[in-house]
């Protein structure tokens, strides 16, 4: 079964600096999709960025980028120029294309210090 692990329950960063959130996953599949979601205090889940396993190029969305290491089964999220509005829980997720399951990690709570 696919599992997703986020080893950092909490992280903090100074405003305007860069922070990296870690995620590892376990799968025997070669084709799959990975995602980072943000959950602010409102608890609404917001899709931040996605990566397709067959693409070697790392995905980027404005200040958010990923470091996808397929062989290591690692998928980290880098947030540049951190802003107060980035404070939230961040979840890494894995989706199998065949089974259509979407499995989440335990989350990392990110605090932005002004």
């Amino acid at each position, binding site marked *: 079964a696919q599992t997703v692990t986020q080893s950092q329950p909490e992280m903090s960063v100074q405003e305007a600096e860069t922070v990296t959130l870690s995620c590892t996953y376990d799968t025997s599949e070669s084709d799959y999709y990975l995602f980072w979601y943000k959950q602010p205090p409102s608890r609404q889940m917001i*899709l931040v960025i996605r990566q397709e396993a067959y693409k070697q190029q790392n995905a980027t969305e404005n200040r958010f980028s990923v470091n996808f290491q397929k062989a290591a089964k690692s998928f980290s999220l880098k947030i540049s120029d951190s802003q107060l509005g980035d404070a939230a829980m961040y979840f890494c997720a894995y989706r199998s294309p065949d089974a259509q*399951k979407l499995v989440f990690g335990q989350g990392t709570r990110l605090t932005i210090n002004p």
Partner: protein
Amino acid sequence: SQTIHQWPATLVQPVGSPLSLECTVEGTSNPNLYWYRQAAGRGLQLLFYSIGIDQISSEVPQNLSASRPQDRQFILSSKKLLLSDSGFYLCAWSARGRRGGAFFGQGTRLTVV
């Protein structure tokens, strides 16, 4: 555009009472549908997912069940609630066979007393 509706937003139920949470998706057809539970400050636990009517997979043996009476309707139920069923329940959908992520409803905060 696609939208997902989940209700109620908040629910307080006594132990032993039944439960029915409803989720409806608009603007798409044949979606994959998901129910998750989130304990306070914790991750999302996948409870059920469905790739079609009468195709529901259960991920965690528990006091809950799910049904999909229509293509875009997903219902989470329980015959008798336990205290441990308290939590934040999220419904989500994703496009079948597409590469995108899932989109979530607003969630239901369930407190069993």
